[in-house]
């Protein structure tokens, strides 16, 4: 067959284009015609309602909470954006429905905290979509009940009872005269020496009780230690400087130091300006303390309380002025900084033991001994838990699995 010439190819292409055009025109007409079949006044498609709305009385409360859960609208589950949200309505004792809350799409639970005993509550949900809304089935009337004891925390109560009981037992034992062994704490053994150093050098002592208020037990611990320190300071006739970041701490600290000076027979040496308020602002307080250190060059610095990011800034400044530094905190994240920068650090529980330790009083020391029972209990539980977890995972022993689950439930205290 002879090949087509260029003129012939052009002719063929043009013919094909013409034919294609002729074919498409009827199709376009068909499309237009098909669109005309759809009426413009079609009814909007409403969203599917949320289902399985359940209201239940919250366990172990004073009858003031109701838990609600539901299955989101099927439209919400299938296609994102078709449902924009939900509205929850409540009917109290057959009164008029009141809107209780609004939720974003996808929400499936809520807790009603504005509930009162003796009233009947009915709930329903309104599903909201651009095309309209749909109401769910109403819940059955629900009346809450008061529960006097939270049995979910029975194990917590038992543990607390054992630990508190052991503390009280050893306090009484010590009070009766039994000698109790308490290990040495290097940081506390150094307190007198540190104060003596400041006395010999004729330079002040700086005491920082942390940056939290009196509602933090670490601050209370710091104040109790301050009492012991201030007593020695009064005996040695050393100057003490205590800038604080909370007004209540200022008040408590002044009272503590004043009493210490009176006990030492030096009421005339006490001055309110030993304790002064600086600011609540964290880094403003840090700047002030650093300034005091640089200007007054304290010979001894105590940091005993709750600290956050400012711990290392303060401790390094104290180090730069050549002070002996004794620190203590129960903030695990700050302990490494104090250990790195200070001469002595009271780690965790040692902060709370410090006051009792320094007092040397038997019944105070007895409370420290009671803590050991708690530690023993913790050690025992850790060993049992580790064994159960290991054997359960390695050999799939049912008894160990059950034991592990039991231990887990015992120590879940967030209920």
């Amino acid at each position: 067959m002879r090949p087509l010439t260029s003129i012939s190819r052009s002719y063929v292409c043009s013919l094909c284009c013409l034919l294609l055009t002729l074919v498409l025109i009827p199709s376009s007409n068909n499309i237009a015609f098909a669109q005309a079949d759809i009426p413009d006044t079609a009814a909007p498609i409403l969203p599917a309602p949320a289902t399985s709305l359940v209201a239940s009385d919250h366990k172990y409360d004073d009858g003031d909470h109701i838990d609600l859960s539901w299955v989101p609208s099927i439209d919400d589950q299938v296609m994102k954006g078709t449902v924009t949200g939900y509205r929850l309505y409540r009917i109290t004792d057959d009164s008029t429905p009141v809107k209780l809350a609004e939720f974003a799409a996808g929400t499936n639970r809520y807790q009603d905290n504005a509930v009162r005993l003796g009233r009947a509550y009915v709930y329903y949900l309104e599903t909201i979509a651009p095309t309209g809304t749909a109401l769910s089935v109403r819940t059955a009337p629900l009346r809450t009940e008061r529960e006097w004891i939270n049995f979910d925390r029975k194990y917590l109560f038992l543990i607390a009872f054992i630990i508190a009981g052991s503390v009280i037992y050893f306090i009484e034992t010590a009070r009766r005269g039994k000698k109790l062994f308490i290990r040495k704490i290097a940081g506390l053994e150094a307190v007198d020496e540190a104060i003596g150093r400041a006395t010999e050098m004729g330079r002040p002592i700086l005491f920082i009780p942390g940056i939290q208020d009196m509602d933090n037990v670490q601050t209370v611990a710091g104040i109790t230690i301050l009492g012991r320190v201030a007593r020695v300071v009064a005996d040695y006739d050393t100057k003490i400087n205590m800038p604080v970041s909370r007004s209540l701490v200022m008040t408590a600290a002044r009272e503590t130091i004043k009493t210490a000076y009176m006990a030492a027979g030096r009421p005339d040496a006490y001055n309110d300006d030993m304790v002064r308020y600086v600011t609540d602002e964290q880094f403003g307080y840090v700047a002030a303390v650093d300034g005091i250190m640089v200007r007054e060059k304290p010979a001894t610095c105590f940091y005993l309380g709750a600290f956050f990011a400012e711990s290392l800034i303060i401790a390094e400044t104290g180090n730069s002025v050549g002070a002996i530094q004794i620190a203590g905190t129960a903030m695990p994240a700050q302990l490494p900084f104090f250990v790195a920068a200070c001469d002595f650090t009271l780690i965790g529980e040692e902060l709370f033991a410090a006051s009792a330790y320094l007092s040397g009083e038997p019944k105070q020391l007895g409370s420290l001994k009671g803590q050991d029972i708690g530690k023993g209990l913790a050690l025992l539980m850790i060993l049992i838990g580790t064994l159960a977890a290991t054997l359960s995972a390695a050999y799939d022993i049912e008894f160990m699995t059950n034991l592990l689950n039991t231990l887990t439930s015992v120590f879940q205290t967030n209920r």
Partner: protein
Amino acid sequence: MKRTVPLFITFFVGTLLIVSVFLPPVQSMGENFTLFFDIIAVFAFFLGGGNLVRIHLDKVSRRKKDWGYSLVTLFGFFLVLASGLFKIGNAGGIAASVTASGSWFQTIFERVMNPLSSTMYALLAFYVASASYRAFRAKNREATILLIAAFVILLGRTPFGTMITAWIPDSLSALQVPNMAIWIMSSPNLAGQRAIMIGIGLGVVSMSLRVLLGIERTYLGEDKG
């Protein structure tokens, strides 16, 4: 009487807070006592502010050393106090929010307080370096272990640590520096932290009982029970 009433209040409120953990009807009372503390603390602000003004006024009036800094402190204190109390600069007047856009209080907070706080916080980087230099020295066995652990973690957090041990095969991937760093943080370090936290919890219980039972009274200004 001066000590007896506070001791009674301490015992009563403390016991109630403990009971509220286990008895739901009492829980709201426990929450209220916590709120009461916040109210008392607010009133205490007057004591703190008054103390601040008195000390610095005394320093200025007596022309003590560095009294100029006290003058700056007083100026800042009264400026912010007035800005907040009288809503100076607020378009909505004294009824508007103290943090409304354009107010002097908000402007001072955003353009003075925040930059100054960030500056102080930035010092931490340099202090970490200086503290590390002193802490991470092989002075004894424990310090050597600390130094090695710190070195591994430092390398493990950087691309260089990945690069220098990338040649180690997957069968020995535990020896790659990033993985060693993760192990140190997730096993020994975490175990130690949790042990400390258990001790802290027990310490809190012990101290709380001493305070509750009146054995520890130093915080009240009394030497001992």
